[in-house]
């Protein structure tokens, strides 16, 4: 339906920082997400220096339930679960952030180029993306890691590859929609070359809808990486990583020692949840149309 109330807005522009503050404060969900996000970042950066126990040190105090000495209990090798969960934050975040950053940069650029120039470039690239998406993605990641060797770098690369098509598709769609817009033609009339128009004008405009995508994708990348390490790919013991900790604790939950699985799993959930919530907030911050 046509907008039934058409009122021209008043008021001048606010600075970006002021707008960011407004976006965060006005929406309680964004505020929550930003708070959680800060907690996670701080844990990742400072955690390893502040943990009470050495996350890799085995002791004889195995399988102790949560207590005052060990907030999250100890695992089957006597290691403090709390310290391990905190330290694992850094590794899990590093893996996901690198993978998402890689696939975002490469996927958006390639997708944008394909959408802007069209023609055979677009068709070929589309076919390539379709072929990647023809695989169940987790399975493809398994195959890539198996083929290229069981290392953390390969887990990052595999996760990046399977994420690429999402960014490529969104970027391509956004570019195609805007390609014919009046202001793009006006940019051409004003003497801007195609590269500048694509990377300097169109893609920044496409950023708000992609922000939600990036954030959801981060969550998904974390789940993927944890899933791969759960089945034994990438990270090896005794490294502390959420997925591997759940895998190690899986055998014990059946006999009632729930703390080995619950805490790393809950941390994982919290991280993914935060990134999912963050998406909308990020879009509000980046979208010029939300400015008042």
């Amino acid at each position, binding site marked *: *339906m*046509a907008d*039934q*109330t*058409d*009122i*021209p*807005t*008043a*008021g*001048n*522009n606010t600075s970006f920082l002021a707008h960011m503050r407004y976006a965060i404060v006005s929406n309680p969900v964004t505020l929550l997400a930003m708070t959680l996000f800060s907690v996670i970042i701080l844990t990742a950066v400072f955690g390893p220096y502040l943990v009470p126990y050495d996350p890799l040190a085995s002791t004889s105090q195995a399988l102790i339930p949560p207590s005052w000495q060990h907030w999250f209990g100890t695992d089957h090798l006597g290691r403090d679960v709390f310290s391990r969960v905190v330290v694992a934050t850094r590794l899990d975040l590093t893996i996901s952030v690198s993978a998402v950053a890689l696939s975002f940069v490469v996927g958006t650029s390639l997708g944008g180029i394909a959408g802007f120039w069209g023609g055979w470039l677009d068709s070929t690239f589309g076919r390539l993306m379709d072929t990647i998406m023809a695989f169940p993605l987790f399975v493809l990641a398994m195959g890539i890691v198996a083929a290229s060797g069981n290392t953390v770098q390969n887990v990052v690369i595999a996760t990046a590859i399977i994420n690429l098509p999402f960014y490529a598709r969104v970027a391509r769609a956004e570019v195609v929609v805007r390609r014919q*817009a*009046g*202001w793009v*033609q*006006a*940019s*051409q*009339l*004003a*003497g*801007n*070359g*195609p590269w500048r128009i694509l990377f300097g*004008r169109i893609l*920044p*405009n496409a950023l708000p809808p992609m922000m939600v995508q990036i954030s959801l994708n981060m969550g998904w990348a974390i789940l993927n990486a944890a899933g791969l390490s759960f089945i034994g790919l990438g990270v090896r013991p005794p490294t502390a990583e959420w997925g591997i900790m759940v895998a190690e604790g899986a055998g014990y939950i059946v006999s009632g020692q729930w703390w080995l699985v619950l805490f790393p799993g809950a941390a994982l959930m919290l991280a993914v949840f935060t990134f999912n919530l963050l998406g909308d907030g990020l879009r509000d911050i980046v979208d*010029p*149309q939300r*400015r008042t």
Partner: protein
Amino acid sequence: MNQSMHTPSGTGQPNGSAPTALLKLENLSVDFQTRRGVVHAVKDISLSLVRGETLGVVGESGSGKSVTSYALMGLLERAGRVSAGKAVYTGIDLLPTQESTMRDIRGREMSMIFQNPRAALNPIRTVGAQIADVLLQHNQCTRQNARTKAIEALKRVRIRDPEQRVEAYPFELSGGMCQRVVIAMALACQPRILIADEPTTGLDVTTQRAVMELVRDLTQANGMATILITHDLGLAGEYCDRVAIMQSGQIVESGSAVQIFQHPTHPYTRKLVKATPHGASHVRDLLPEQIIPVEANERNTATLEVSSASNTQHRVPVLEVIDLKRSFVGKRTLADIVARRPTASFEAVKGISFDIWPGESVGLVGESGCGKSTTSSMVMRLLDPTHGSIRFKGKDISLIRRQSFVHHEMRGALQMVFQDPTDSLNPRFSAADAIADPLKRLMGMSNAVQIEQRVMELADMVGLPGHLLSRLPHQLSGGQKARVGIARAIASEPELLILDEPTAALDVSVQAIVLNLLVDLRIRTGMAYLFVSHDLEVVRLMCDRVIVMRAGEIVEQGVTAKVLANPTHEYTRALLSAAPRPPAAPVAPDAQNACVIESETNHA
């Protein structure tokens, strides 16, 4: 000031008794809950509608005209709420009525047709099935004869081959045909009242006339009353018995159509009537009386340009288009490969030729699909022609491919103003950024102070207040955005400016101001204009010569006054007769007495 409307007793009624109103709106108010608080979309309006009459509700965007009809039908969106008033139909107040009763009333007693007809139909259901649904709902047919009745309904709305069309899906029909289907659904049960909400906006002018005549014939045949909601005062003037003018949620004036056009009393009505370009002899006449140009001899300057241009022999035309062609190749299908035939191609422009002389304003007129947009893209070098040449000041610029032309020295000399002001501005650029862009790229300016100064000069030339320059597009009104687009286009001091329907998306009063601005600019800078439009009346006012296009070809061209007075081609004649003909508005003489009549403020 609010005015209520009551039919004067005896008017239009043969037997002389006071006609009872079929529908009476009393003190209706509608509010909307929005992010910015409560918006009073409709404020205390009163209307009445008598059997068999056509009432026009005219207003610009934001006037609340559509909201009134949605409130009547009980179709307001969730955020909307009727806060006061009554709508009495055959003794019942519709507004507090239960949804189940309203459902019986809708379609059977009161019906509605909408803007954007293709979107108004279910895309995955055949047209016949949709009509049948309505008929079945109101017990006008049985399951067995539903199809037959649907075909009859299609016949009544004059759709050709109704037996085939009944199985068609909306995407297979044109806009005009879709609107006829919607009309068929609305009139299927022969309601007593039809509400038509901008039914012809977006349709070609010839289709528009066909649809309006269909509506008029059908409503008159069944003795229906109609409420026509539109922003086009001319349309209301031709098809309505009475007209109510709305502004900011209130009715400012109402009366018979003749009265409104010939003797408008309220300043807003007067402004609207003047701004509607029908029969106005000069573009200045579109403006309300308060805005009168200082130099009266400007009126004649435009015509002077024409005579001087055509007199000189040794001047070179700014633009020469010679046998220009453009075809678009479709996708190569499997069927083509198998049958070994060439891929289907579509010829958008089939070999056209015309010139534009310096300082001249030439109009390019045609309906959708005639190739005028393709032509202007080619002239602007945003698109390469498949054949023919384009000479700019004697130099063949069609030889330069469009990718290279971006950096060509002549890029700044050819600029364009786009149709949709919203779509033509980068959402992330402030007004100042948008105007500064060509200054940096084409004029090579790099000093920030110089750029800012020049931007302010340009903003001043187009009448854009300086404090708006830091705003983003979504914070500007339609008219303001249009000005930014114009300032951006003239920043590189072009010699040829193509204006692609620059006022089509604007309210008519804003259009008046923008058109005048364009005339002023042309006088000051000596630019030549190629004015692309579908509206012959606007072209009459703005252009010295006119070119009429149809299906990729030029059917007629010549001096505007001559072509429009004595068209030689039948298509031009069809276009001319399709335009709405309201009762004649008073001619220019009032404006020549250049005194300020009332000191009410005017905003655009």
